[in-house]
């Protein structure tokens, strides 16, 4: 029998709020354990949760950025389970009345066909503490770090709309781009600010029922999510074909062995309305205020780049897929750089140079203003492309303006025909064979002569002017 997979995803994204969700402790990663704690996030007797306005705003921006509909009324529940990473015995989460419903992302499937991946809902919840297991001599010990306890999260729950690992991976990449765009989460699977659980079931192709699913956790890259789903489809198909029944449970992805292993029966704790966190009521005016704060999302921006700046769809999509890159590109345009030059130099020169140095665009010493000044000199023929690449290197190393670097290092292009004339005459005298070839109409020889003159000028000559002068002199 031919089977198809039915895949749904649950994505936890950590919001980059200043404080935790229910107290004023800093929401900061990487600090010494148990520094950022207080009676609230340690859940001491008598402590009461104080819901953060910033968490609500950031969560709402994520919802709006994903086209979801913010609900006029949402509320927190106590999701009951006992584990040492949650010593108060419940997690504050929105189980019954989520912050938003609906929404979705447009992706492209393997066949290149557009597909809408729908979201079921998005809810807010607090993160739990982090468990650290160590050995003290031969004694295994378990430690609890409460720095993470109470970190604000959104959980994005999709409809079971994916049919292949590829679709799930495409969705995650697009989701990451869009959530980063809102500026509310770093969404990095690497450091755990984005965590993905996949729910996978299979059914005979052509049928519509939803069969018993298996939940897979512990993937720390988009690639691993794809691998884990692929493995699970194969495993379930083989099991069903062998006459076994799929039972509801949770499995862990083992990235080294590239297999999923059973962890536990899937646990669904009860969710009791929380009596201490007030229900959240959003007025249409407030929602509108949030909508205004939302940046232009990548799809709309790409479309505008095509229309406004004449880029190809592919170029526009690439530039708009990263908020920083798109912003940098537009800053160059505002400085008066032609769109194609800006696109070309940004993607083929500046970005590789940043990557080489391990720098982020936002933290680059080559600000849009400095880079634009360099590109302006290039388009005015004050320097040539070779020199521009050299100047770029210097822009990383010191704080001088490109103009100052060009002057100080003598990169200015020589377009003065008088100065070039002498150089050209010298080259022509030294290369009689090439001169003869040019006269015979061999274009290759012309290129060679231009190169020779260029070399003689120390790379500073304007190749366009050389070509013109050579042409005149040789009548070619």
């Amino acid at each position: 029998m031919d089977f198809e997979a039915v895949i749904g995803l649950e994505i936890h994204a950590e919001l980059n709020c200043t404080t935790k969700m229910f107290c004023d402790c800093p929401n900061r990663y990487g600090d010494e354990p148990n520094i950022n704690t207080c009676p609230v996030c340690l859940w001491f007797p008598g402590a009461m949760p104080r819901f953060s306005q910033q968490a609500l705003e950031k969560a709402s921006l994520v919802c709006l950025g994903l086209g979801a509909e913010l609900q006029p009324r949402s509320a927190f529940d106590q999701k009951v389970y006992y584990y040492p990473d949650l010593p108060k015995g419940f997690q504050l989460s929105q189980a019954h009345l989520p912050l938003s419903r609906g929404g979705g992302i447009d992706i492209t499937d393997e066949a290149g066909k557009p597909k809408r991946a729908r979201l079921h809902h998005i809810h807010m919840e607090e993160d739990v503490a982090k468990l650290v297991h160590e050995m003290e001599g031969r004694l295994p010990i378990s430690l609890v770090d409460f720095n993470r306890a109470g970190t604000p999260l959104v959980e994005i729950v999709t409809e079971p709309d994916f049919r292949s690992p590829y679709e799930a991976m495409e969705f995650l990449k697009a989701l990451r781009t869009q959530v980063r765009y809102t500026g509310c989460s770093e969404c990095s699977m690497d450091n755990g600010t984005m965590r993905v659980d996949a729910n996978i079931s299979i059914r005979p192709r052509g049928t519509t029922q939803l069969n018993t699913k298996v939940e897979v956790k512990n993937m720390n890259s988009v690639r691993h999510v794809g691998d884990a789903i692929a493995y699970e489809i194969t495993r379930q198909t083989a099991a069903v074909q062998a006459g076994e029944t799929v039972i509801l449970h949770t499995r862990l992805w083992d990235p080294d062995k590239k297999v999923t292993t059973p962890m536990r029966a899937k646990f669904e704790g009860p969710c009791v309305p929380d009596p201490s966190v007030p229900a959240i009521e959003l007025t249409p005016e407030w929602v509108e205020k949030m909508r205004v704060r939302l940046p232009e999302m990548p799809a709309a921006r790409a479309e505008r780049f095509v229309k406004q700046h004449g880029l190809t769809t592919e170029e526009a999509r690439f530039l708009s897929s990263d908020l920083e890159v798109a912003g940098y590109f537009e800053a160059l345009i505002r400085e008066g750089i032609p769109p194609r030059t800006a696109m070309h130099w940004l993607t083929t020169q500046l970005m590789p140079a940043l990557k080489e140095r391990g720098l982020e665009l936002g933290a680059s010493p080559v600000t849009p203003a400095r880079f634009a000044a360099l590109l302006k000199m290039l388009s005015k023929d004050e320097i040539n492309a070779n020199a521009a690449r050299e100047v770029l290197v210097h822009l990383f190393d010191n704080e001088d303006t490109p103009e100052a670097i060009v002057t100080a290092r003598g990169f200015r292009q020589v377009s003065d025909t008088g100065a070039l004339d002498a150089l050209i005459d010298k080259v022509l005298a030294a290369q009689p064979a090439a001169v003869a070839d040019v006269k015979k109409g061999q274009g290759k020889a012309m290129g060679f002569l231009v190169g020779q003159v260029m070399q003689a000028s120390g790379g500073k000559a304007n190749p366009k002017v050389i070509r013109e002068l050579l042409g005149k002199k040789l009548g070619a």
Partner: protein
Amino acid sequence: MDSVFVYRHSESAAPSGGPLQGLRIAIQPNISVADWPTEAGSNALANFTALEDATIVQRLRQAGASLCGSTRMSEFGFGLQGSQAGGAFQWQAADAELVLDMMGESRLAASRVGVCGFKPSWGLVSRFGLVDLIPSMECCGLLSASLEHIREILKTIAGQDGLDFSLPDEKPIDFSPRKIDPKNNTLGVITEAHSGLPADQEKMFHASLDDLKRAGFTLREVSFPDFPLFSLVHQIVGSVEASCAAGRYDSVRYGPRAPGGKNWNEMYLLSRGIAFGPLVKSYLFQGAYFQFERFGAFEDACRIRARLLAGMHALTSQAEFLVFPAASGAPSGAPALLPETYAQFASTLFANVTGQPALYVPPAPGAGNSGFQVAGARLSDARLLDLGEHLLNMRRGGN
């Protein structure tokens, strides 16, 4: 007196001039006072010392009151088993006591020692710093022989608190006393609230009603057939909330850790096992049962609670205040189990389900009744105290 207090404190003179200057107030150990033992009557919190003051403590001290110690309480304030609420009066060690009211504990404790017991409206007084068990039903009750003291204390501790976001955003209450004119006030009596009392208690309740009639109030008998559901709703919703709230009283971070667990899960289980007394433990089990096995019943109870709230609210259009017995007809003696505990509070727990204010008015010395409760709509606390003062004054031959 050691049997009354778990902790005594001789406070240095409070800042002078506050409205509560010189007033000695006893609290319970479920109210956080920095550096005081805050064990809430439970082994699960043994040796837990509060890190910071509850909002009410901070406000009381600021108003000049002196906190004279905390009295012995039942485990988490659930019921009155083991509680010495009211004992500080008997020893004349306090002018007022703060007593957690979860099912009617402050009102029944007041009736034990013959003083006034007041349960404020839910959402009027900050719960920040209170060790909670049933957050949606409990609130800090006030005991005193003087309703003026109760009014002044309530005025001091009531109102918005930046540390308790659960307080609804409502207009502050005007606490200034106003005269009650019996001619303009109808008192409602819910038939179902007293019809089940044993004959002798029913007789005493009627004696109280006769006193009210003689004082010039109009009494109106009203029917509220849902009244018996209050107990059921309280028990289901209350036990579920308690089961959640008690999760953090794990007896691991404070309280005694049980030895002998093979791994941490076992250590947690064993520690929780020895942490709670039998009454609270059975209550938590019941809550867990509704959480995990009968969640639908819990949701039904929440819906019925909303219906009870609406029903009681509708009654306030027929009568300004409602009169209830305080006694429940339950046999005297310390109840050991849940059913007996709930039977004991059958006449008082309605106010915890609805969040409305209720006042226990003690009988006049030598009178042939047992005292009774009056209740009003939510946030009618000041008016209810006006009514109480009118009734007490009446006995003194005033008005």
